[in-house]
Every structure is written in structure tokens, then in C-alpha cells.
């Protein structure tokens, strides 16, 4: 990937500091990911690049989606943790907003490593961009390694099934896959449930043209009243729940893991329901 010129990166970084509010620069400078003389960590995460790249998302966060946080202090300041959230909105702006929240609203900031789908590395430009901002392919091996290194993993157990829900199914969580639970038990990592409210209305999909999507080799082809799944200026509310700790064997049979994953799903659904009850309106 042709790196944007250094002066552009510098401008973007200034923009990030401005959008983040006073003290942002000092806070972000506390991020000391292990990096080599070429500025990247072994996964390809580049703090300087990420601070620049986050600027447009920070703008969306502050000015467009006007994200309101509830309970961010429940995210542990350090140590391994799994952040488990509902997924919606056709395009994964929910992931971006959670990551911006951890970056700009925590002191010291935390990098959330979102797990991306296994086909993402085949996408030109997207693949190196994601790597430079700290995202990894969601293989169990990657997750184990990152948790062992006391990193924060952002997981959407609904996957694309949640992301590409139709408008008529909004805020009805798809059943959580239980893979994250095995990882949490193995690594003895706490789970912070996250409920995102607002994203379901950002791109109301009326139909999903599945056969055409298959032909194009993409996971879904949602059609909104204005055709493209571009986000509307909805008001985001992100609710962080109390960390949950589970005990048990990671090798327990699937039924037991699914039961525990169901508990997390219920916690996330609870946060979503709370957010729906408390918000004054979709756009307000």
C-alpha cells in the first residue's frame, strides 16, 4: 500500500487530537505498542498510522453519530479482556465507534483488536489498512496469542449474520456462536458485554439480495430505501456492562459452552434493551 505522505498523516493526526479534545495527544502518546525500527509491531500494527487513520472515524464519532457512552469505566484499564458486542448496521461502523471510544475516552487509551472475517485479507487496500490499525483475522490461534499478551479483543459473535440483519429484525440478536467462550475460559479472561444502540437504524435494509451477493462473492447485498447501505446520522449509544467472569473447562461439551455464551448474549441484549428504553429518539 502506498503510504499517504507524511505531511497528510501529520495533518490527520492533528485532526484526531483536535476531535479528541484537550489532553488527547498526551494520552495517545502513552500508547507504546512493542514496535521495531520500522514502526510496526509483529502483527503490522502501526501506532502513528493508526492515530492518523482514526481521524475520519473520530469525526464520525463526535460530529455525525454523536456517540454517547454509558459505563466505559467498566472496561479494565489493562490486562486481557474480551469485549463482546452486538453487531448491526450493514457496514461495521459499530466496531469503529467502539474502537474510537476506547482510544479517545480511556486514560490510558486501549487498542481494541477487532477480529475480522477470514476473507478480509483478500481485499486490496482494506487488508493492509486493517493490519496497520491493529485488526487481525479471527483465527483461534490469533486470539490465544493476543489474549496471552494481555490485549483487548473485540468480538461480534453474531458475525455477518448480525451485521446484515434486515430492518424488520432490528435489535433481535442472532444466536451467539460459542467460540469466544472457549477462548475466555482458556485464557481466564473477563468478558465485558457491550450493547450498541443506533447502528441498527443507520442503514435500514429492506431486502438482502443473497443470490446476487453470492455471485459477487460478498457476504450480503442489503438494499436500503436509498439503495446503498450508507449510514444515516443516527445517534449512537454504547453501553458497557459489568465484566463477567466464567469458570469451567474450555473443553466442556458444546452445550455447556453455548449455555455460557447465552448468558453473555442475555447481558448484551439487556444493555441493548436498556438503551432502547432510555434513548429519546433514533436521531436525537
Amino acid at each position, binding site marked *: 500500500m502506498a503510504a499517504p505522505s507524511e505531511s497528510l498523516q501529520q495533518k490527520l493526526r492533528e485532526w484526531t487530537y483536535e476531535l479528541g479534545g484537550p489532553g488527547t495527544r498526551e494520552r495517545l502518546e502513552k500508547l507504546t505498542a512493542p514496535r*521495531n525500527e520500522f*514502526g*510496526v509491531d509483529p502483527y503490522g500494527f502501526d501506532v502513528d498510522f493508526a492515530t492518523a487513520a482514526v481521524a475520519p472515524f473520530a469525526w464520525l464519532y463526535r460530529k455525525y453519530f454523536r456517540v454517547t457512552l454509558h459505563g466505559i469505566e467498566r472496561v479494565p484499564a489493562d490486562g486481557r479482556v474480551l469485549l463482546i458486542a452486538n453487531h448491526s448496521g450493514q457496514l461495521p461502523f459499530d466496531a469503529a465507534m467502539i474502537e474510537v471510544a476506547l482510544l479517545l475516552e480511556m486514560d490510558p487509551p486501549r487498542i481494541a483488536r477487532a477480529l475480522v472475517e477470514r476473507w478480509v*485479507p483478500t481485499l486490496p487496500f482494506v487488508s493492509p489498512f486493517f493490519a496497520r490499525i491493529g485488526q487481525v483475522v479471527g*483465527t483461534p*490461534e490469533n486470539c490465544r496469542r493476543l489474549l496471552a499478551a494481555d490485549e483487548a479483543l473485540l468480538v461480534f459473535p453474531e458475525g455477518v449474520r448480525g451485521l446484515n440483519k434486515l430492518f424488520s429484525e432490528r435489535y433481535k440478536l442472532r444466536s451467539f456462536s460459542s467460540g469466544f467462550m472457549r477462548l475466555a475460559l482458556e485464557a481466564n479472561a473477563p468478558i465485558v458485554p457491550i450493547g450498541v444502540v443506533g447502528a441498527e437504524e443507520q442503514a435500514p435494509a429492506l431486502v438482502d439480495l443473497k443470490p446476487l451477493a453470492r455471485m459477487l462473492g460478498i457476504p450480503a447485498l442489503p438494499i436500503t430505501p436509498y439503495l446503498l447501505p450508507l449510514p444515516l446520522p443516527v445517534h449512537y449509544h454504547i453501553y458497557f456492562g459489568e465484566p463477567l467472569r466464567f469458570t469451567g473447562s474450555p473443553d466442556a461439551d458444546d452445550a455447556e459452552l453455548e449455555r455460557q455464551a447465552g448468558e453473555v448474549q442475555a447481558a448484551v441484549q439487556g444493555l441493548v434493551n436498556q438503551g432502547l428504553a432510555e434513548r429519546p429518539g433514533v436521531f436525537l
Partner: protein
Amino acid sequence: MIGPEPAAPAPLPGPVLVTGIAGNLGRALAKQLHLETTVIGVDRRPFHDRPKDVEHHQLDLRKARVDDLFRRRRPEALIHLGIAHDPRMPFSEAHSFNVVGTQKILELCVRHGVKKVVVLSSANVYGPLPNNSNFLAEETPLMAADRFSGVRDLIELDMYAQSFVWRHPEVETVILRPCNIVGPTVRNAPSNYLRLARPLTVMGFDPMIQLIHEADVASALLQALRPGSRGVYNVVGPGEVPLSAVMRELGREPVPVPDFLLRPTLRRLFQAGVISFPPEELDHLQYLCVVDGSRAQRELGWAPRFSLRETIRSVLP
């Protein structure tokens, strides 16, 4: 008070037979190895600039005379580098040379009571696959042939060596899988690619890559030769770095071309015999084939000596 002296490294075994010694890596190895033990080289190529005390036998591994050599010289150990990676070599010949040659020489080791065997494989057996984990451990299935049949030989050889490890517990066998080997004398695909002033890259891709200096591979082979280790080890250099950063460090001007143009063009040129770069090798410019080398560092007590910057710059004249 002075603490206990650090344990001296276990001594190297007696005469060591080195196949493929006349190659660039073989020569780098011979330079280090002959200072500590007796080196017997076998290669079907002549060995130029051979150190005086290294004997060389210009032989094909599949020939009966190799058996005579074992009988006469009684090697205690084998380092097997005799693997050809020439994409232009006809398939049947490459298979016979690499796989049959390996089987023959390992059988001879059993018959003649060789105590230690080190086989050089490659991290390419895992293959650059889009859904690879960021760091591949030694247990990762060898899936490279899924996308590129040209590496079938290499995988077959690696698997044969693995089965040899457990079929012959009396022979202490080590398989090393180094990442991309580079160096001043190395002429393999990655080194040659990095020597291009305007290398083609795949537009929109910039994978993390691993390079290792040829002298570091030689020292890893030497370390694996010491008694006490057995099994499969990934061997990596001093770290991971984006391909674009390597290009910048070397002052290259990459020419990005979209995959949908580059791949078919290369395929046609390769089939016409114009270039010797199989189109499937483009995967290395797109996807991760990065391995976890921590087991070798922990269990072999080996570490690379060249820094990341030195390793990258080693391809320069």
C-alpha cells in the same frame, strides 16, 4: 563470588556429511562448520572456493557411490540441504532429485548408524494463504500446495522427514523450516526479487514478511546439529516487517499492478518460458506466511545475529 560457568555448547558430532554443499547456503555453512568439525561435502555441482580442509564429492545422491562414501568415511551426522528449487526443472526430475534423493540418503543414515540428521525444509510449506494466522506454529497443517502445486515436493519431503523422526528414534532428527533466506550470495526468488530496482507489487497489498540472513540459517543448522534436540523447528530472523518498508529501506520503486492484470500476465509469460516466476508466487506479495520461531530460540538456544536492517540490506551488492 563468581557464579557457575555457563555450560559450554555440546560438541558437534564427528565427520558431518553435508549435501548440497556447493550451493550458496552450503558454502556459508561449510565456512562455519569446518572450524569445529570434519566436513564432507556431497553435491552434483562442483564446489568453488572450497576451504582446504573440506573434502568434496561430486556425486548425485541417488547414485550407489554415495553408499561407498558412507562405508569409507563413516559420517556421524548428516545435514541435508540437497534440495533443488528450480521452477523450470521438469516436474518428474525435480521430484526424483528432491524426494527420492532424500529418501535414499536418510535410508543410508539408518543403515550406517548415523546419529544425527538435520533436514533443511522451509517455512514455505505452510504457504501464504489468505486465512493464515499471523504466526504459524510448527503444528500448523502444511497447506501450501492448496494454492500452488509447485511446492508439493517440498511438502512431501518435509512430511517424509517428519515420519522419519518417529520411525527411527535411534537417529536424532531435526527439521528446520526457515523463513525467506536472503544474503549477499543468495540467488533464490526472494533475494532476486528484492534486487529489482522497480519490482512489481500487487496493488493494495502489503503483507508482513520475515527474512533471515544466510549466515544466521547456517548458524541455526550448526546449532541443530549439536546433540540433544529433535523435531520440527521454524527458524526466523530478527522480526517481521511490511513488504513496503523493505522496499523503502532498499530504495526500491515498486510498481503496483492490480492482481487481476498481474496474475494472468505472469501466467502467460511463465508458460511461454519468458520468466521463471510462477504466478502463484504472487501470493507471497499478498498474504501472510509468517511463522512463530520461538520454539527454536527456546529449545535450540539459537538466535539470529543480524539485525533487521542488516538482514534487509544484505541483498545489496
